[in-house]
């Protein structure tokens, strides 16, 4: 066959193979490759394509053989290199990808494309210094400015950023077409100059006639100009310019107004400003006031910028002590409310100014109380809602009594029902104008719940919000509140239903999945085989995979298109997602669920150990969105978010750090993989070691005390248990763990059996081993199990009884932690289950000790399981539903929220609660049986 004919045959495999994540065609690609490989056994492109299809079918071991084969041939062919780049990325072998491109570039030093690929592969693996070296080499080779880098040492992304900008700067200034010929390039030029702090050059550009005219018409260029002026300290000049824009050009962008306001205080802004300065500022404030008043008058209700700027001016004047009239702020606020009160944004607009006290507060409150509450149209309704929100925001602690809050909740509900007809004719896709009243009522009910711990208030909130959703199907704010409330009520399946109804997509998985997955293992039914929540964990993390694929490609594309200045933005975005706190919290939750669902064995332990180790040293970005929860609680009280956190604790960075530490340590002890074995056996790059610091094993031995702040008291007890257990067993693990050579030999034997290929770089000893080995030193003396281990389960028993009285969620928390402690114990003692290991290491006494702990734990777990199942029986009954409905009678006394409607909600809540209690109970019982011997 001619090479042309072969190429024709490969093409249909090649194109779809490079379509990322197209798993459907992998199988047929493998078949096609095999066919062609029979005729062309040495063809490296076929081999690399087959390797890619194998990687994508999760057949990692088979692909490794082909992959190493291709790498050994030192490919330079473009198609092979591209396919291999995807193979190596899939395997996490970024360093090998760099080596491959470097080798190819070395072989063909005149090939510019290969040089660029070498550069990208370094950038992708964040090898900044190496990337710079490649670029320098390319500059020498091709004499092109684009490869000329600055003198900075790019060991950090920050330095890389500077370098990329310098590159961009050189490019734009050396271009024969000046940047001011298009706004697009002018913008680019300015952003480069700002980044590099070349302010003089920037100023020259802006001050030119063309520059001025571009800034006057292009919003983006003007934004940069403003930044540059401010960075140079030209506050006064900026204020004057903004004033002209506002007055002459009718510009109403808020930043222009802020510039005008800031300029009034230039004299008093520097420390140590005296009376003269105050006098000057006070003059300027008066002038500015006049200008703004005129604008406010002209614009009326059409644009609120002028009025808002007057408020901002007065607030700052008060802060600097240059206000001329003490009650002016309240007057302005009233004026603002009169003009803008019928817009939904009024509350948010006024929030920064309403923290009043004394007489001011009294005047303001009286004013708001006077807003008419008889409603005939939506404008009046919005005015009333804004008044309610503003009043509520300023309630003092003494006004937050159960009676007062109950009265308010009832008032908001009543007004909601009354004003609902205003939106009767809206299409079903629209939101109801009265919705905010329900959200206010929901806030008040939750506030009552946090005052009293009485679930009746949550029943009311959920019935009301559910009803509101039947009227406003798209109201995600009601859904978010319900998600939180149902979790508090121990009805997680209803939370999940609402979460799914929001159709969370893309990056939202990162910012919003915490609403459903935070501490989700306490609701996981995985032990009974229901892996709904575990699957939710996996699905929510797909975004991170597509992020690393897509953003990497875009970085390369931006470089090729010479859009250097955008690369730092992409890198930063990729980093934020790649190192997302939520991503790793979900990972830990998934591990906790997985242990209840799958048998604990060395495969599971090894795999999770490797993954979790990666995460421990990560610097995390917290992208979780809590702001999106509607919060209308008084400023002196906790916000809605804090009030509705499950178990009252947020699972932030320190929570993650402690749970990672617990699991990495347990898995590390249970595993036979030490660093040398891992280096040989594992595919992909290892996490970077912390320079000059102690090894990971040493660092995870001790608990960081400050990391306990996010833990509940039950979780702290669990952490104590884990610590004691690991400290106790460590010497026996270290003694009994087979030496690296033995582990490697065994792995090589297994690989040969499985794939038919020997394991690269590992010799199998001729005589073989049977898993045991001679030791030079005596085994460590066995000491009895520390008392804390047994006591832990005794305490759990007491704690559980108490928690069951408090709330189903608390009971589930304690019960699932007991189960988790038991499973951790199984992980830690797995090694000592093998009679040959025990015999060879003379650890018989240890086994006896372990057994007594296990038997004791099992007896308590069984009691807990029985109690949970019994409790489940008492849920979902007529009585429980009746109690729920009665608790809601205050909101369902009349139409449209009637008895039947509430009964339906009651049924769903009590059924959901019954199910989770029952299944967790059964799960614990199942685990107890599985590990009973």
């Amino acid at each position, binding site marked *: 066959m001619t090479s042309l004919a072969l190429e024709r045959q490969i093409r249909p495999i090649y194109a779809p193979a490079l379509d990322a994540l197209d798993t459907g065609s992998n199988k047929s690609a493998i078949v096609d490759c095999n066919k062609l490989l029979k005729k062309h056994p040495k063809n490296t492109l076929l081999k690399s394509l087959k390797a890619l299809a194998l990687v994508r079918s999760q057949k990692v071991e088979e692909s490794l053989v082909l992959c190493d084969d291709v790498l050994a041939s030192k490919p330079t062919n473009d198609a092979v290199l591209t396919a291999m780049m995807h193979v190596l990325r899939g395997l996490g072998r970024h360093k090998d990808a760099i080596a491959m491109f470097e080798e190819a570039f070395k072989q063909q030093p005149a090939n510019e494309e290969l040089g660029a690929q070498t550069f990208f592969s370094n950038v992708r693996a964040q090898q900044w210094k190496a990337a710079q070296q490649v670029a320098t080499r390319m500059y020498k080779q091709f004499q092109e400015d684009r490869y000329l880098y600055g003198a900075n040492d790019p060991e950090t992304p920050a330095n890389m950023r500077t370098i990329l900008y310098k590159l961009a700067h050189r490019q734009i200034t050396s271009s024969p077409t000046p940047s001011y010929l298009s706004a*697009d390039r002018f913008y680019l030029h300015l952003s480069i100059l700002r980044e590099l702090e070349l302010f003089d050059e920037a100023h020259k550009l802006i001050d030119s006639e063309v520059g001025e005219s571009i800034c006057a018409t292009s919003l*983006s260029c003007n934004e940069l100009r403003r930044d540059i002026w401010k960075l140079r300290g030209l506050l006064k000049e900026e204020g004057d310019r903004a004033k002209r824009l506002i007055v002459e050009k009718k510009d109403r962008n808020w930043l222009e107004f802020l510039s005008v306001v800031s300029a009034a205080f230039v004299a008093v802004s520097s420390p140590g400003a005296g009376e003269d300065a105050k006098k000057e500022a006070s003059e300027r404030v008066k002038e500015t006031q006049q200008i703004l008043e005129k604008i406010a008058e002209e614009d009326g209700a059409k644009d*609120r910028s002028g009025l808002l700027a007057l408020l901002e001016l007065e607030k700052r004047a008060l802060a600097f002590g240059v206000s001329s009239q003490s009650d002016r702020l309240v007057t302005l606020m009233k004026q603002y409310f009169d003009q803008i009160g019928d817009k*939904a944004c009024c509350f948010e607009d006024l929030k920064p100014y309403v923290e009043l006290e004394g007489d001011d507060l009294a005047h303001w409150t009286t004013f708001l109380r006077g807003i008419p509450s008889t409603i005939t149209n939506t404008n009046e309704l919005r005015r009333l809602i804004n008044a309610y929100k503003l009043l509520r925001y300023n309630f003092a602690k003494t006004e937050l009594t159960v009676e007062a809050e109950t009265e308010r909740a009832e008032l908001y509900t009543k007004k909601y029902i009354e004003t609902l007809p205003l939106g009767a004719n809206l299409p079903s896709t629209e939101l109801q104008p009265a919705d905010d009243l329900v959200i206010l009522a929901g806030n008040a009910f939750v506030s009552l719940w946090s005052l009293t711990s009485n679930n009746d208030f949550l029943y009311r909130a959920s019935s009301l919000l559910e009803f509101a959703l039947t009227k406003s199907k798209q109201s*995600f704010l009601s859904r978010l509140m319900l998600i939180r409330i149902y979790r508090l009520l121990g009805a997680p399946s209803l939370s999940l239903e609402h979460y799914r109804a929001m159709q969370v997509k*893309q990056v939202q998985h990162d*910012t919003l999945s915490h609403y459903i997955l935070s501490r989700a293992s306490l609701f996981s039914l995985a032990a009974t085989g229901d892996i709904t929540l575990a699957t939710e964990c996996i699905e929510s993390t797909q975004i991170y995979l597509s992020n690393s694929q897509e953003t990497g490609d875009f970085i390369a594309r931006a470089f090729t298109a010479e859009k250097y200045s955008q690369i730092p933005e*992409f890198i*930063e975005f990729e980093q934020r997602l790649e190192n997302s706190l939520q991503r790793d919290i979900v990972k830990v939750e998934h591990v906790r669920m997985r242990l209840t669902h799958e048998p604990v064995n060395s495969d599971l332990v090894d795999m999770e150990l490797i993954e979790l180790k990666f995460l421990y040293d990560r610097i995390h970005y917290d992208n979780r969105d809590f702001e999106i929860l509607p919060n209308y609680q008084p400023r002196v009280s906790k916000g809605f978010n804090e009030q509705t956190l499950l178990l009252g604790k947020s699972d932030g960075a320190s929570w993650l750090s402690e749970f990672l530490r617990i699991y990495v340590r347990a898995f590390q002890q249970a595993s036979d993989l030490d660093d040398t074995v891992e280096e040989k056996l594992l595919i992909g790059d290892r996490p970077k070691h912390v320079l000059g610091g102690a090894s990971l094993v040493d660092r995870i031995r001790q608990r960081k005390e400050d990391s306990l702040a996010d833990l509940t008291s039950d979780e702290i007890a669990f952490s104590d248990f884990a610590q004691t257990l690991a400290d106790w067993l460590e010497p026996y693990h270290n003694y009994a763990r087979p030496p690296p050579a033995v582990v490697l030999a065994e792995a090589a034997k297994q690989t040969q059996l499985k794939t038919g290929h020997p394991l690269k770089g590992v010799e199998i000893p001729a005589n073989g081993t049977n898993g045991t080995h001679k030791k030079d030193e005596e085994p460590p003396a066995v000491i009895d199990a520390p008392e804390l281990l047994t006591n832990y389960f005794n305490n759990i028993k007491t704690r559980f009884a108490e928690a069951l009285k408090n709330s189903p969620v608390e009971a589930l928390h304690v019960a699932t932690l007991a189960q988790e402690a038991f499973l951790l114990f199984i992980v830690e003692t797995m090694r000592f289950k093998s009679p040959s290991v025990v015999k060879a290491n003379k650890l018989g006494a240890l086994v006896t000790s372990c057994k007594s702990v296990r038997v004791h734990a099992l007896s308590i777990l069984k009691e807990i399981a029985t109690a949970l199942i019994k409790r489940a029986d008492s849920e979902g009954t007529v009585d429980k539903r009746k109690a729920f409905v009665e608790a809601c009678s205050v909101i369902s006394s009349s139409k449209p929220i009637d008895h039947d409607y509430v009964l339906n909600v009651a049924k769903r809540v009590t059924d959901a609660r019954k199910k989770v209690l029952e299944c967790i109970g059964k799960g614990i019982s199942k685990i107890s049986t599985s590990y009973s011997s």
Partner: protein
Amino acid sequence: MNIRTARVDDLLGMQAANLQNLPENYVMKFWIYHAMTWPQISFVAEDHKGRIVGYVLAKIEEEPNDNGEIHGHVNSISVLRSHRRLGLAKKLMLLSQEAMASIYKATYVSLHVRKSNKAAIALYRDTLGFEVAEVEKKYYGDGEDALSMRLLLTAS
């Protein structure tokens, strides 16, 4: 209210606006691609806290039509409910249109809108002067028709 050009990292901040208003979400890839290729025609509106309350995401159709015309396309526009009735959508649209015409010399701008979305249609047609070019049957995932609307951009 401040309006500025959109950046890549706004993607995370736009989630609230998205949740509320966009039943069919665009994928991340598009956003990044748009931000990279036409950095000056997509805008966001932020409130005094810097929280994004509205945005317009647009692109330039690269393939010129038979008459050799280049045109812009609005992929999505969204304003938080709490910040409606302030003329934000109009401002965002005008800025994008202006940039399309002045920077990329686009001759017209196009967009798709749900047939049932009366409020949006009113904005496009009555306030901004768009006209319906055609009806695209079952354009949306749930089977609803889309109106394909257009507006000629006069060179400014």
